[in-house]
């Protein structure tokens, strides 16, 4: 049994083709794996290693460097509440406490229905909008206890399905790269003259 679905397998092959070296596709493929399952299992890392010709240890070494890869199941919605200075001053602690009560889990935990994982986060670069949180890395600004409850209820009811896809979904992986901009199309060793992108950008 292959790890990736046949559609994702096709996409994986395409992603690898974007780079002169298969290894460069490690992180995009990890994202693809996380999109497929919501988190990254050992099997996923073994398969990514196989695809990019790296050992599972190398893949895991790369993957575990990054916060956004999860190595245990997380809820469909990952809620990160910022706790850095501005948010802290504007009630982040209170918000976190409220969120824990509302969801019935402590920070780091996942609700029993598998819908929500609650996490504490460092600065989300939106200090003017404090306190902030992110749901699957989509910002929510000036969050109050009321707006938090509303958000959770909407998510649970599926009202926000159009805006917030399940955890792991990332647009970039799906980004199509026109053939003439794909690095893999011309191995760097064979490029003569200015890089393709420069020619294209310059022309516009």
């Amino acid at each position: 049994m292959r790890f990736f679905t046949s559609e994702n397998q096709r996409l994986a092959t395409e992603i690898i083709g974007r780079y002169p070296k298969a290894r460069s596709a490690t992180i995009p493929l990890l994202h693809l794996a996380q999109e497929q399952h919501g988190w990254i299992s050992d099997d996923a890392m073994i398969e990514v290693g196989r695809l990019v010709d790296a050992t599972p240890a190398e893949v895991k070494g790369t993957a575990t460097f990054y916060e956004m890869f999860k190595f245990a199941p997380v809820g469909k919605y990952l809620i990160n509440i910022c706790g850095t200075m501005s948010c802290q001053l504007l009630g982040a602690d209170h918000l976190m406490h409220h969120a824990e009560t509302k969801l019935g889990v402590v920070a780091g935990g996942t609700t029993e229905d598998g819908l929500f994982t609650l996490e504490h986060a460092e600065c989300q670069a939106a200090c003017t909008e404090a306190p902030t949180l992110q749901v699957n890395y989509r910002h929510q600004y000036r969050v109050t206890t009321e707006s938090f409850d509303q958000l959770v209820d909407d998510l649970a009811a599926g009202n926000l399905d159009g805006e917030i896809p399940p955890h792991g979904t990332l647009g970039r992986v799906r980004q199509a790269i026109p053939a003439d901009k794909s690095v893999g199309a011309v191995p760097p060793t064979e490029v003569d003259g200015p890089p393709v992108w420069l020619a294209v950008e310059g022309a516009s």
Partner: protein
Amino acid sequence: MTDLASASEVNETGVNITINGVRVVAPKGELVIDAAERNGVYIPRFCYHPRMEPVGMCRQCLVEVDTGRGPGLQPSCMLTVSDDMTVDTESETTKRAQEGMLEFLLVNHPLDCPVCDKGGECPLQDQTLAFGPGESRFVEEKRHYEKPIPISDLVYLDRERCILCDRCTRFAKDIAGDPLIHFMHRGNETQVLTFPDDPFNSYFSGNTVQICPVGALTARPYRFRARPWDLAEVESTCTTCSVGCRVAVQSSRNELLRYEGVDIESVNHGWLCDKGRFGFESVNSDQRLAGPYLRDVNNSDQLVGTNAALEAAATAIGAGRGGGGVGVIGGARLNNESAYAWSKLARTVIGTDNIDAQLADGLSAQMVLSLPRATIADATSADNVVVIGTDLKEELPVLFLRLKGAAQSGRIKLTELSLLVTGLSKHASASHRYVPGELAHAVGELLASNPQLASGSTVVVIGRPSAADFPDEVEAAVGVLTAGLPLATFLPALRRGNVMGALDMGLSPGVLPGRVSLDEGRDWFGSVWSSLPGEVGLDTAGMLEAAAAGRLDTLVLLGADPLADVPDRDLVERAFAGVGSIVAIDNFVTESVKRANVVLASTAFAEVGGTTTNLEGRVSRLGQMITPPGTARADWMIAAELAWRLGGDLELESLAQIWSEIEAVAPSHAGCTLEVVEAEGAIEGVVVPIPKSPDLAGAPSGPASIRWSAPALAEPPSVDGYSLRLVARRKLYDAATNTQMAPSLANLAEQAQLMVHPGELRRLGVESGTRVNVTSSRTTVVLSLVGDAAMPRGLAVMGLRQPGLAASELIDLRAAITELRIESR
């Protein structure tokens, strides 16, 4: 002189720099840390290792450097010298930086030195004492991890002690090519780890333990066995295979405890393979043969004194000498001096030329001795290297490392021709497969399609591809090579420890010491030895056939186990049944020794000094560290005693005196005196023959060297569509006695199985892992059949000597190839 700097890229143009106020000249491209060390200034370091690319990971080597823009702190392991650079390793700023780094490194270090194997030889201890702040301001709780975790069967990791220097992980990836350990997580959580259930099973894992600058990595065979200050040490040369890596042999209370790699430029660069590194366990084994015994007619063993055993051995050999003949098999375990003594004993006292250090599993001695020889340095700097036949990773591991490194750096263009994908395949510019029985033709095609091989320097590494094929095939292939590449030099990939020394000492029929043939050397040796056999004797295969036919009275097994090693078990069985008596001289009671009538115990590695010769022809010193068990004796002493009891006298008295005799009589060893081999700085050893200095060029030096001519190209054997051709390959860990007697290595040997392409499984209609009947012209055996997409179609691959079943059961050594028929049961 070879210094550490030679590992990095250094050319001869000098650069003027000032180190601590002293003007010195450094070669362009040299790293500041090396330039300083060369001039007697040691800069502390953890991550920098002269045999690996610098990474600037630990920052311990920060020193104040001024290149004209004012002084600043720079990591000296990442900085190359430049003109008018000023380096201050003792300034207040440098001192504060180094103290600060050490204070940081010790923040999380557990300082459990009293229970740490590294304590006493620990760079962190030593450099903290020399360069550290003396005390720490850190009062918080340290990081905690489970202590220690096994990362393989051989290596344990204590993450609390790790200082994240990246040496082990860099070694695993860049040097060994087994990136199975890696930094995982980030920041304060960063740790070295393997992937779950994917242990650090590298043939070279022990090197990480040696280069870890703290006690984070420890080797199971040594853990808690000794403190460094209790170890006695002698330098020696590993004789586990014919690469001949330089090692420091360490012991305590007459027990071997550890081997450490010694860095020599020409061979191992400080690395060892795990089989060599941990093989000391077999020397210590309580299964060692500690004294002689006789087996009587009722098959019961009777322990006897050495005199009685020698008497019995002499009687058996004497009976053969007077009657149907004596044959001596083995000798590659011996040091050069013992090999010479046995060569002399056989030729002069026993009067036979039936002597062979190879067990019908190697290459023609005449061919090996007559080919122009390359060194490892030649092979790592040639324009082209062609590796033919063997999987060097399995057979000569550190030679594999050296060639892999040279290929990766782009210095050499590596071309491979082998039956199967090998460890080197992915590092080769081109890797070709051929079909058993067709090597010579494949070589012809290779030469035709690669004309560049004939231009520039080419080194050919040649070994025996499969013990299931007729060795003539290799000779014919070499014939094609020497004709097509007249300037090529060769590295013979023979596996056994001192097989090259044994061949140089004449342990092969028709070959006398010093690479001369019996016929060409007749006059010369006739004058220095008392007598010589009349005609060329039998090789191992010939001796076994003669014994099987009742034409040989006595077989002497000189550290040989033909039942296990000769690729034709049936022939050995018949030979043992047909021979009058067997005298065995060995370290262990092997399967073959069990069949001997007289058994004498001999010394093992580190129990006797002398010299050994590696595949390049490099003669280097062996060190004696411990005394042998019981009454075991050096093989040359046994030879001398036997000569005496047979009414002769070898006139050999000590290792030193034997070496002088070798230097005097063996033409290839002329000039290689003990003084030369032992000279200060000669840890690199001496490659024989030593080129003659011009003023000696005209001097007579004994007979001309050996001649060999390639056999005619045979027609490839015809293809039988129903059979699979057997490939009997060697794996590093197998059922060989020395591996099985080392508890840490024994379990690393894979069980015997037959591997085929999955397509063959489908054709046969069986699942992978099914046990099947396997039939050759010799016998039918039961083996589990495993599918593996790396196997070429039409071949069936098994280890020559894996536990469970040896391929030798299936092989007829007089058949050009071995065909197998596979049926479900």
